[in-house]
C-alpha cells in the first residue's frame, strides 16, 4: 500500500486538473451560448483589431488651456479608462486643446460618461428644495418676478454666517429658483464656489418616473470639494438594497465634514426638514441630497442616489482619480482600424511556433523521453491560458496586443525553465544514487520550495505593478500574474503527477537509455546495491562504464562525511523499497 499512495495522489491531481479545464470550458460556453457575450477566440487590442476614437475638445471661455491642464486631464482620463478593465486604451493630446481617446471595440454610454464628464464634486448644504414641477407661477398666485429684473436685490441683507444661513436667499435668487427649468439644465460645472447655486437632481430625461420625482434646490456655497477625497469605492448596501458610493475624506476634509454634519444634525433635532439636508453635487447636478441623521466625524460618508452597479462604479472611479481641470465636449467619434495588420499577428504566431518547436527540440535532446513531459505540460498550459483569455475578454474586457502575445509566448518559454529546475533536481537525486521513484519524490520536495519562492517573486511583481502602474504596464502585470498562476497550477497538477506515474513504468523507472533518467549516463555519485544491478544490466558500452566508474570514484572521494552518511542512509532506505520520504 505504501507505494500506491503517490499513485493515488497523482491520479487525483490529474483528474482535478481535468475538472478545472472542464469547468473553464463550461464557463466560456455559458458566456458564448447563454449570455452571447463571450467568444471562442480572445479579443484583440487596439493595435491588432482597431476600435473607437473619440476626440474631446476642451471648453474654455478665454483662449487655449495651458499644457499643464491638458497633461493633467490626459492623466486623469487615462486612469479612469484603465480602471474599467485591462483593455489598454490610448490617450494623447492633439494640438493645443484636443484630447484623443482610442479604446478597443465599441464605446458604450457608460464608458463615454466615464471619459468626458469632468466630475467636479462639491458638497453644499440645502437651503430650499421643492419638486421640479414648480412652474413660473409663485405660491402666492402672483406672476413670478423676472430674475433679470435689475430692481431685485442680489446681495444678502445680513452677511451670512454659514452655508445654511437663510440670508443667502435674496429676492433675486428666489426669482431665479422659481424660473429655473430642470429640463433645460445648464452646464453648471464652473459655477462660483462661494455663491449659492440653483440646480436640480440628476435624472434620466427618458424615464418619466425619474422626471416626476426630480427635485429643484437652492444650495448654499461649497462647503467641501472632491479635492479632499482620498479614496472612493462602490458597494452594495444589503440593508437598503441600494448601490452606494463610499467616500473617504482626508484629515482636513473629515474635520470640515464633521463640522457641517454637526450643524445639519442640529436642524434635524430642531425638526427643520429642509435645511437638515446636504447635497452631493457633481458637475453642477445633485447626485443625492440625504438628510443628516447623525454626526459623521470619521470623514467616511456614503452617497446613495439612483445608482446601478455600473454607474456607482463610474462615479467612484471619477471621484477617486479626481476632477478634470477642464470640461470637454466630444468633437468626433469614429471607428478606427488596426495599426498593425493581421499579417503581423501571423508573423508573431509563426515565430512563436518556431520558438516553441526549438524548446521542444531542446527538451528532447537534453531530456530524451522526458522532453515529452515538458511538451505535454506546455500544451496543457497553452490550452488553459487560451480559454482563460477568452473568459477574461468577456468578464474583464481583457485585450491582447502584439506585445501581449509576445509576452505570453515568452512566459510559456519561462515555464519550461521551471521544468528544468525540477528535472535537474530529479537528476541530482539520481546522481546521489536514489531509485527513480525516490528521486522523483525527493527532487519534487526540493524543486517545490525553489519554484514556490521564485514564482511568488513573479506574482509579487505582477500584483504591485498592476495596482500602481497604468496603461501598457498594467496589461503586462496582468498577463505576468495570470501565466505565473497557471504555471504553478500545471506544475502541481500535471507535471509532478505525470512524473510520479512515469517513474513506475518500466521504461522510465528502469532508467532506459532514452528515458533521460538513466543513472549511468548521469554518472551516479553513489549507488546502493539495488542500483548497481540496474547499471550493470543496462550498460552495454564498456568504455563508458569505466569512465562512469572513474567519475563515481572521483565524486566519492570528494564527498563529505555528511554526504556519505546521507548516501548510506538513503541506500538502506531504497534497499528496503519503501516510499521516498521527505528530504
Amino acid at each position, binding site marked *: 500500500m505504501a507505494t500506491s499512495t503517490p499513485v493515488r495522489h497523482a491520479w487525483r491531481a490529474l483528474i482535478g486538473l481535468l475538472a478545472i479545464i472542464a469547468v473553464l470550458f463550461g464557463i466560456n460556453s455559458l458566456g458564448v451560448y447563454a449570455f452571447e457575450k463571450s467568444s471562442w477566440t480572445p479579443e484583440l487590442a487596439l493595435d491588432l483589431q482597431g476600435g473607437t476614437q473619440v476626440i474631446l475638445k476642451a471648453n474654455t471661455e478665454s483662449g487655449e488651456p495651458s499644457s499643464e491642464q491638458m497633461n493633467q486631464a490626459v492623466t486623469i482620463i487615462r486612469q479612469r479608462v484603465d480602471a474599467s478593465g485591462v483593455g489598454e486604451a490610448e490617450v494623447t493630446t492633439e494640438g493645443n486643446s484636443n484630447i484623443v481617446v482610442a479604446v478597443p471595440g465599441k464605446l458604450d454610454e457608460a464608458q463615454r460618461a466615464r471619459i468626458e464628464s469632468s466630475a467636479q464634486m462639491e458638497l453644499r448644504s440645502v437651503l430650499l428644495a421643492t419638486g421640479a414641477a414648480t412652474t413660473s407661477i409663485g405660491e402666492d398666485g402672483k406672476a413670478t418676478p423676472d430674475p433679470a429684473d435689475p430692481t431685485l436685490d442680489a446681495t444678502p441683507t445680513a452677511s451670512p454666517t454659514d452655508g445654511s444661513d437663510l440670508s443667502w436667499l435674496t429676492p433675486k435668487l428666489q426669482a431665479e429658483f422659481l424660473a429655473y427649468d430642470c429640463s433645460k439644465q445648464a452646464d453648471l460645472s464652473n459655477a462660483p464656489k462661494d455663491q449659492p447655486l440653483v440646480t436640480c437632481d440628476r435624472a434620466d430625461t427618458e424615464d418619466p418616473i425619474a422626471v416626476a420625482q426630480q427635485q429643484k434646490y437652492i444650495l448654499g456655497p461649497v462647503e467641501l470639494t472632491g479635492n479632499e477625497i482620498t479614496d472612493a469605492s462602490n458597494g452594495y448596501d444589503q440593508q437598503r438594497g441600494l448601490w452606494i458610493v463610499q467616500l473617504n475624506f482626508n484629515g482636513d476634509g473629515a474635520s470640515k465634514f464633521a463640522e457641517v454634519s454637526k450643524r445639519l444634525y442640529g436642524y434635524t433635532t430642531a425638526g427643520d426638514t429642509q435645511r437638515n439636508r446636504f447635497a452631493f453635487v457633481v458637475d453642477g447636478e445633485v447626485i443625492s441630497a440625504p438628510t443628516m441623521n447623525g454626526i459623521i466625524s470619521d470623514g467616511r460618508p456614503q452617497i446613495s442616489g439612483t445608482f446601478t452597479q455600473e454607474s456607482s462604479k463610474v462615479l467612484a472611479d471619477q471621484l477617486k482619480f479626481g476632477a478634470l481641470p477642464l470640461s470637454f465636449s466630444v468633437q468626433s467619434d*469614429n471607428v478606427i482600424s488596426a495599426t498593425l495588420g493581421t499579417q503581423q499577428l501571423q508573423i508573431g504566431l509563426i515565430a512563436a511556433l518556431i520558438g516553441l518547436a526549438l524548446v521542444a527540440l531542446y527538451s528532447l535532446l537534453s531530456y530524451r523521453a522526458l522532453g515529452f513531459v515538458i511538451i505535454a505540460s506546455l500544451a496543457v498550459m497553452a490550452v488553459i491560458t487560451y480559454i482563460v483569455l477568452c473568459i477574461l475578454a468577456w468578464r474583464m474586457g481583457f485585450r491582447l496586443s502584439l*506585445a501581449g502575445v509576445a509576452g505570453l509566448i515568452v512566459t510559456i518559454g519561462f515555464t519550461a525553465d521551471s521544468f528544468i529546475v525540477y528535472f535537474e533536481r530529479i537528476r541530482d537525486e539520481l546522481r546521489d544514487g536514489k531509485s527513480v521513484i525516490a528521486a522523483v519524490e525527493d527532487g519534487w520536495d526540493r524543486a517545490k520550495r525553489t519554484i514556490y*519562492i521564485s514564482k511568488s517573486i513573479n506574482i509579487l511583481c505582477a500584483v504591485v505593478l498592476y495596482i500602481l*502602474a497604468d496603461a501598457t504596464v498594467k496589461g503586462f502585470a496582468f498577463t505576468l500574474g495570470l501565466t505565473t498562476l497557471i504555471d504553478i497550477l500545471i506544475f502541481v497538477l500535471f507535471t509532478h503527477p505525470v512524473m510520479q506515474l512515469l517513474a513506475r513504468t518500466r521504461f522510465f523507472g528502469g532508467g532506459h537509455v532514452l528515458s533521460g533518467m538513466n543513472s549511468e549516463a548521469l554518472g551516479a555519485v553513489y549507488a546502493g546495491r539495488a542500483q548497481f544491478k540496474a547499471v550493470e544490466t543496462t550498460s552495454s558500452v564498456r568504455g563508458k562504464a569505466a569512465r562512469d566508474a572513474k567519475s563515481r570514484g572521483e565524486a566519492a572521494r570528494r564527498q*563529505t562525511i555528511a554526504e556519505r552518511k546521507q548516501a548510506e542512509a538513503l541506500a538502506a532506505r531504497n534497499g528496503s523499497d519503501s516510499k521516498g520520504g521527505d528530504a
Partner: protein
Amino acid sequence: MASMNQLGNDLYTGKTSVPFVGKRNLWFLIAGLLVLVSILVVFLRPPQFSMEFTGGTQFTVSGVAAENLDQGKATEAVRSIAGDVATKVTTVGTDGIRVQTEALEADSSEGASPVQQISEALATAYKVDAAEHVSSSVVGASWGADVTRQSLWGLGIFLALAFVILALYFRTWKMSAAAIIGLLDVLVITFGVYALCGFEISPAAVIGFLTILGYSLYDTTVVFDKIRETTAEQGSASHRTFGESVNLGVNQTLILFIGALGLGAQTLADISLSITVGIIVAAYSTLFVAAPLYSLFRENEPKIKSHDAKVARARERDADVA
C-alpha cells in the same frame, strides 16, 4: 547530447568547476567596468525613445475614396520624404486616414518643410487635394511622463518588498542585497547595450525589460536557493570552505542556464530583442555578480572566517604530509 549530460555531471560533482567565486575580484572588476561603460554610453549617446514616449506629428487625410483606402500607401509616402521613420497608420471612419510619425519639422527657413512635403505626398498617394483634405497637428505622448512615474514607483515598491521577502525566506539580508544589486546590474547593462546599438526604446521594449527584470530575479532566486541547500547541508565538520560551497551551488545551476539560453529563442521584434539582450546579461549577472557578492558579504562573518581558516590549515597539513 551525452556530452551535455557529462558536463552536467561534472559540474554537479565538482569535477569541472568554473571559478565564479574564486576569481571574484576579477569578476567584480569586469562588472564594475561594464556598468561604468554602460553609464558612459547612456550619457554620450542617449537612447532614442519612440513616438509613444515623445509624441510626434499626426497627419489626417479625409475624403479618401474607398478603393484608395490602403494603409501601406501612407508608409510609402512618409518614407519617400523623411526616410526610415516609424509610422503608425490607421483608417478612421469610412474615408479617413490617420498617420502618426515621429516629431517632424513644421517650419523651414527655405522651401517646403518636411511636414508640408509629406502632406503633399499623402495627398498625391490618396488622390485628394492637399490644402482641403490633409491636415497636420502635433500629438502628445500616449506613454506620458505620468505613466513612467507610476511604473517607476511600482518598481521601487516591488524591489523593496522583494528584498524583504527574500530576506525572510533565506533568513539573511545578504542574499537579498546580492540579488537586488545583481538586478540593478542587469538593468544598467541592458540599457547600456540598447543605447550603444542605437535601438529605439518602444513600449514593447519596456515590456521586454520588465519581463527580464522578473526573470532575472527568478533566476537569482533559483541559484540562491540551490546555494542555500548546499550550504545548509554542509555540517561544521565539512572540509569545504564556504566560498567553495557557493561555487558548487552556482556550478550545479549553470546547467540550468545552458537550458535557459537554449530556450531564449524568441523572435518578436522589440520584445525579443530586449529579452535576448536581457537574458544573456541576467545569466551573466547572477553568476558573476550576485553569487560572488553574496560570498563576499558572508565571508567577513567571524564564524565563517574561522571555519575557512581551519580548512586552510588542514589543507596545509595534508600538503606537508604528501
